[in-house]
């Protein structure tokens, strides 16, 4: 397997750093080498925050990636900033609940998901980031469904009441991911 480099981007507070962490953890337990590198704007709140997760079979060289193989965007500015950077043949997952525009690239796979809507349905309005994670896992199969789910359980272990809704959000995303894989492929 070549390196997998996922860039997850949104406003600060939208939880993409956490999604990245869950993905990295899952890959680590899967025996992969991983790195997780965040990047923030100067604002304490409302600014942009993104994270790059690299997953590889050998030690990760650069954790800093200009051209990721996948991009998950929660908001418009992030798509604008990073959309053009995704590697040819790569993947872009767009949260349609906050991104109104479409992606114009034709050399990548673009998956549109109403992550906000799915999260609300799952019972955790703030879990759009988990939906996005689910989409990516479902689409890419980079880690198994169960391993990713386990990471979510582990993460929320101390606030157990949030587990069911977050798992539901993950499921919703996962299904959407699997679906679009089938559709897209």
């Amino acid at each position, binding site marked *: 397997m070549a390196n997998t480099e996922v860039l997850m981007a949104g406003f600060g507070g939208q939880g993409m750093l956490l999604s990245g962490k869950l993905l990295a953890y899952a890959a680590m337990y899967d025996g992969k080498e991983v790195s997780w590198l965040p990047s923030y704007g*100067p*604002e*304490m*709140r*409302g600014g942009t925050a993104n994270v790059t997760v690299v997953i590889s079979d050998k030690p990760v060289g650069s954790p800093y990636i200009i051209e990721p193989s996948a991009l998950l965007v929660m908001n418009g500015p992030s798509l604008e900033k990073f959309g053009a950077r995704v590697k040819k043949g790569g993947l872009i997952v767009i949260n349609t609940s906050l991104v109104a525009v479409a992606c114009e690239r034709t050399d990548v796979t673009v998956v549109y998901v109403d992550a906000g809507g799915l999260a609300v349905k799952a019972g955790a309005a703030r879990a759009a980031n988990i939906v996005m994670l689910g989409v990516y896992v479902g689409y890419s199969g980079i880690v198994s469904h169960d391993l990713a789910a386990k990471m979510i359980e582990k993460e929320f272990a101390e606030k157990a009441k949030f587990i069911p809704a977050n798992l539901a959000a993950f499921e919703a995303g996962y299904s959407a991911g699997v679906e679009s894989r089938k559709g897209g492929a």
Partner: protein
Amino acid sequence: MKKVFAFTDGLTRLPTHYCPGCTHGVIHRMIGEIMVELGIRERTVGIAPVGCSVLAYKYFNCDMFEASHGRAPAVATGAKRTRPDLMLFTYQGDGDLASIGMAEIIHAANRGEKFTTIFVNNAIYGMTGGQMAPTTMPRQRSTTTPAGRDPAECGFPIRMAELLTTLTTPAFIARVSSHTAAQSVRAKKVIKEAFEHQMAGTCFTFVEVLSICPTNWGLSPKESNRWLEREMMPYYPLGVFKRPQESTGGDHGKH
């Protein structure tokens, strides 16, 4: 239609990077308005600190410095002593002024430097992500006091206005709040008086302004206002603590 409240020429039109509801913006606006009202904008030099207001130099519509963490009073001293015709103000947070910059503010005050310090007390390190400030309240949680500030370990919050008031050198020292419109109205009067003392070359002038940090307090702006009133105001009473006429030096004050 007559504009009875217009965007002040004392600020640039740049949107700020402050969090929604953060009263840094309110305090900025008051200073900007005062510069215009006193007609001093074109001879004012402001000094931004290191803290959330580090970018204040982009927002004030006057010449601006960015000082190193805590040293704004020294920078202001260098500037004002050599250019006494300029109006100088420093804008400092509680980490900046009361922690690392403690020596500089006390000595500037004690030398009677003729500039104005606006001291924004929000009981936390905003910019670096919510660590304890010298003004953090007992039991208040911060990222470096995860179980709440324990006075037995970290001492009690420092009341800067009161501390500076004890110095013998004449000064204008006050504490106001920015959290409500009503308080802001009072605050602006006091800050204006500080600038007026500076214009007259009378003394060092210092206004502590209570301010909210919704982000690091983990509260909404409204809840933050309530927290400020309930937790901070009893410990940090508002008022003018010292005016230049009122020496606290006893006989020695007259030397």
